[in-house]
């Protein structure tokens, strides 16, 4: 089977599944729903893996482009086309595999829900849109997927639509994303206006052929590349939850947990990183924006990590952790370590999905309870969930040889190599904080003694197989995913040939521009030293967590902290009051302006002027009206007066 010629079926299959489940299947047919809901992404995964295999063994690294049909013609000619190159291959792999596992998990997690069919329909829709995003050959198809995943995010966050909060959270997610999309759109416009195409390949070729076009001043003292990359990055800020547009992601936890795992941890939120790497040629030509990206990434990383320390909702901890890790990825992209960004994206997809699914298993066992203050000691009751969760925690904390270690280390090395020492420092600090708050969640959830009610304790049970098997498989990924990118330095020190598979595979995607220096190389000793430092920091974070929350200590540390530094604790627990700030500074003034426009401009000024005009007319009419007495004699008199006037006029 030639999977490559069937490339467009990879996103099409999940769409088909969504349509079948959404329109044809009835609510009661649960078996059918499950079959369709799993078969579509499953088939898509198989097809995707086959295609990637055939591509990697046959065509690589030449990109494969497949145009399905032309969307528009004429001056603005855009094809609906797909592109398989190393970058999209990696993304497709991550999306289909993690996505399929989460689908399987959902069968168990969502089994008793009333909206089962709706859930699977939306989840399939999401898979389709996400695959459209990563496989799209031009900005337009990417944007379709980009908005499509946003839509699914909206629908799935608001899955529990009969409650007050989830739909609100969904709306917030969509709107905040839209703010980013607006910039994305402007960036696309600028690209199209300058290059006349939106194809990734063509744009890259043209920029490579004539970088001076992209470097020419455009607006605001920015070059074209600078303007476009700034716009695109603002788009990425929205989708990938970076400062200042990160506020929607924590709220997005209102959706079902598998949704958080799939959309708000593993796939959709990383789309921004994917886009930045996809357009790396432009970023390389806009060093000031790249630095900005790295700065925002680093700031987000540490900012979210500090908030994560003070959260008590297990999913909120993971949400801020996601924001923080996404910051890492942007940090990587910003300092030019594009491969590292994708690497971290891939490993993060595995361990963060695992964390979320594990937390889902916990929540499932707790009967919907998400507050860690009411948990504790769950490892006895959840014999499979605990080890997998622990593996994921170790991975995210950066303990070797798990996945997170290699990817995080590569990022930090990249930052150090690019002489961004401040950013490196922030990164390493964040690594420590990450280990700390992640182990805090492990200790509070699984260690110590149970703090919930008796009813809950009685109810505790391990999840069914359909949920635990994906956990195990993801744990496998969380352990091994890092091995595809073991740093070149390590191989060489050990005396082996370089087997940094990922790096070799992805390097054709990373443009090499004359005059742009990307090859920062560290000496092996420095590299090793950096690794040791980051491992030490991670272990330090772990130890701190163990000291504070380990064993039977439970929440004592949190209480002490709240007593000693009530201000800081409140600040962290309330997420630095950013939501409130936005509400006061942006939302309310805007609503006031809108109300002013309506009540003052529309009703008072425009309609008022109109009504004044109408009143004057009416008044004039009234004055004239009094002559219409209805008395025939008056009319006769008018008539007579008229005759006299005529007479007068005729004679004189």
């Amino acid at each position, binding site marked *: 089977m030639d999977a490559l010629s069937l490339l467009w079926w990879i996103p099409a299959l999940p769409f088909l599944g969504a349509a079948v489940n959404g329109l044809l299947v009835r609510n009661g047919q649960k078996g059918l729903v499950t079959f369709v809901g799993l078969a579509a992404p499953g088939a898509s995964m198989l097809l995707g893996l086959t295609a990637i295999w055939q591509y990697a063994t046959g065509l690589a690294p030449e990109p494969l482009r497949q145009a399905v049909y*032309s*969307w528009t013609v004429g001056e603005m000619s855009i094809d609906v086309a797909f592109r398989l190159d190393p970058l999209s291959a990696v993304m497709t792999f991550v999306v289909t595999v993690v996505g399929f596992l989460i689908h399987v998990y959902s069968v168990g997690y969502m089994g008793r829900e009333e909206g089962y069919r709706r859930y699977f329909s939306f989840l399939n829709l999401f898979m389709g849109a996400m695959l459209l995003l990563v496989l799209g050959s031009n900005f337009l198809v990417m944007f379709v997927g980009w908005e499509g995943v946003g839509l699914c995010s909206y*629908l799935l966050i608001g899955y529990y*639509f009969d409650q007050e909060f989830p739909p609100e959270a969904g709306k917030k997610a969509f709107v905040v994303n839209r703010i980013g999309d607006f910039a994305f759109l402007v960036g696309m*416009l600028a690209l199209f*206006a300058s290059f006349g195409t939106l194809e990734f390949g063509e744009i890259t070729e043209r920029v490579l052929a004539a970088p001076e076009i992209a470097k020419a001043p455009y607006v605001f003292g920015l070059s074209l590349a600078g303007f476009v990359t700034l716009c695109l990055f603002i788009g990425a800020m929205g989708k990938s939850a970076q400062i200042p547009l990160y506020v929607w992601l924590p709220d997005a936890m209102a959706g079902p947990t598998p949704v958080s795992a799939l959309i708000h941890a593993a796939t959709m939120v990383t789309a921004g990183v994917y886009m930045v790497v996809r357009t790396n040629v432009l970023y390389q030509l806009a060093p000031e924006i790249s630095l900005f990206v790295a700065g925002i990434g680093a700031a987000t990383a540490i900012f979210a990590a500090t908030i994560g320390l003070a959260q008590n909702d297990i999913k909120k901890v993971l949400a801020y952790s996601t924001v923080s890790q996404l910051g890492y990825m942007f940090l990587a992209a910003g300092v030019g370590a594009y491969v590292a960004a994708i690497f971290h994206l891939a490993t993060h997809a595995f361990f963060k999905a695992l964390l979320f699914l594990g937390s889902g298993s916990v929540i499932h066992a707790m009967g919907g309870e998400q507050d860690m203050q009411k948990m504790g000691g769950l490892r006895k009751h959840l014999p499979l969930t605990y080890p997998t969760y622990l593996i994921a925690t170790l991975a995210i904390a950066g303990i070797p040889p798990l996945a997170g270690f290699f990817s995080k280390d590569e990022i930090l090395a990249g930052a150090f190599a690019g002489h961004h020492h401040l950013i490196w420092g922030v990164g390493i600090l964040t690594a420590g904080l990450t280990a700390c708050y992640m182990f805090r969640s492990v200790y509070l959830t699984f260690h110590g003694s149970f703090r919930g009610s008796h009813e809950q304790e009685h109810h505790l049970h391990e999840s069914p197989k359909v949920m635990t098997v994906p956990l195990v498989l993801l744990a496998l990924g969380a352990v091994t995913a890092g091995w595809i990118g073991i740093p070149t330095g390590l191989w060489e020190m050990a005396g082996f040939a370089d087997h940094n598979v990922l790096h070799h595979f992805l390097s054709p995607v990373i443009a090499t521009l004359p005059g742009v220096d990307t090859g920062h190389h560290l000496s092996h000793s420095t590299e090793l030293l950096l690794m040791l430092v980051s491992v030490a920091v991670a272990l330090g974070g772990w130890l701190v967590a163990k000291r504070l929350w380990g064993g039977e200590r439970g929440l004592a540390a949190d209480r002490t902290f709240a007593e000693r530094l009530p201000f800081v604790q409140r600040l962290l627990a309330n997420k630095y009051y950013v939501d409130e700030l936005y509400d006061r500074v942006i939302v309310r003034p805007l609503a006031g302006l809108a109300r002013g426009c309506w009540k003052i401009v529309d009703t008072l000024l*425009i*309609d008022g002027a109109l009504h004044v005009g109408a009143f004057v007319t009416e008044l004039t009419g009234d004055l004239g009206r009094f002559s219409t007495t209805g008395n025939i004699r008056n009319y006769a008199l008018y008539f007579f007066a008229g005759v006299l006037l005529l007479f007068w006029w005729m004679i004189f």
Partner: protein
Amino acid sequence: MSTSFLDLLLGDTITRFVFFPTVAGLPLLLMRRAPAATVKIYALVVSLVELALIGLFVVGRWGSTGALLARDAVLPWIDLAPLSVVYEVGLDGISLPLVLLTGLLLPIVLLGSWNGIDKHWGGYAFSMLLLTTGILGALVALDLFVFYVFWEVMLIPMYLIIGIWGAERRIYAAVKFFLFTMAGSLLMLIGILWLGWTYGRLTGVWSFRYEDLLRLELPIDQQLWLFGAFAIAFAIKVPMFPVHTWLPDAHVEAPTGGSVILAGILLKLGTYGFLRFALPLFPHAADRLTPWLLALALVGIVYGALVAWVQVDMKKLVAYSSIAHLGFVMLGIMACDLVAWQGALIQMVNHGLSTGALFLLVGMLYERRHTKKFEDFGGLAKPMPWFATVLVFSTLASVGLPALNGFVGEFMILVGTFKAGWRWFAALSTVGVVLAAIYLLKMLQQTIWGPITREENESVPDLGLREALTLAPLCVLMLWIGVAPKPFLEPSRPALAALLEDYRSRCAEPAPDEPLLAPARVSAGSPTFAAGVVDQEAGR
């Protein structure tokens, strides 16, 4: 060979489908005692036949030239030397999408008014049919006098529809609608007469034919005055920012069908007028005033969106959203770029579909709950899942979600505007995209999501078969245009390209000091009719 009006009416002509609704609708006025079902089915059949007539006419000419052009034989109408008014209608790629949309919306509107209109159904249906004739006539008129007549024909039925079948404040709304529109169209009438008079001064014969008047080269000051007269008439219809206040009132008070036709087609006559008349007839004035009109369009986009956001009435929200969406169309038209024009044209259709669907949905909700206020809704997705689905779908189309129709138009408009050099206008108008998400999602939030707060909402019935049939064609088209817009864009391209070519070449030459008569344009001049097929490259 002399053709009579009757020949046109009976032949396979534009005239036939323009006048068919009114002629076939006349019996409705006599059916005062007939059972309601008979009246309704008769009207529906008439509307479907009308759709078939339009469809057959278009299909019959499809592909013959590639550009789909047709025009009826020209009939003398008022022949009092030196006054010469002719009846001349023609169909080209610019009017085609709107003609098709009109034909499509007519049966949908009648079906959507099935139970919502509770008195004088026959009269209502006849008003709709008469309105259709007015709209179609204005869209195909090739003589400004004929255009004006049809333009005014549209006014009366709409006035009646709002005034008779509207809600509580219907009289206020109807009068406001009437006065606004009338004020504008009288200015336009003066402009038309002035043009005819000028033509008469130059040739000895007053003519109002579009193609004749296109040959007029006027000095800039006259152009500015005349463009102003036309622009005000069309801007009121669109409606653009400071003259928009009739629209929310008209929409809120109008019955569902009236709102659908009003938003779906009537408003487009304004933008169509800009594209067809105001720009080509007065290119220099249009060129000079472009930044101002772009600014007004931009203000309309942002302003409409902001005001929509704080509405408490569902229908009013949709009405203000129309202002924002039509702002996009105006942006595209004034950008004077082929892509933008194509986008503007397709956006007119898109807005008709998605806003039409939204108004139908609001109407269905109103029939069930007799209220349009947000505070009375909430949580309706539970009792009405299909309603919620279609509402979300239409809303997303309206928001401009890619792969649905709204995005195609917005994107092309923005690309064209940006490409034409109006970068700031394009960039700033994308703010409207953000705001659209805010207010439309607010609408969803307050109607279908959340817990049910009112007891009456517990058991609202879901969509029935008739309602589903009403909405289905709209939804299918929304998805189709969004996924594969190419077939919808192609027919109008040659006509737009020719128009743009003509506009640009005329702008390039300075305006004369005295009115002049340019030689008749054979090729690109009068949009596409003379030459039949226009060179595909003409627009570039």
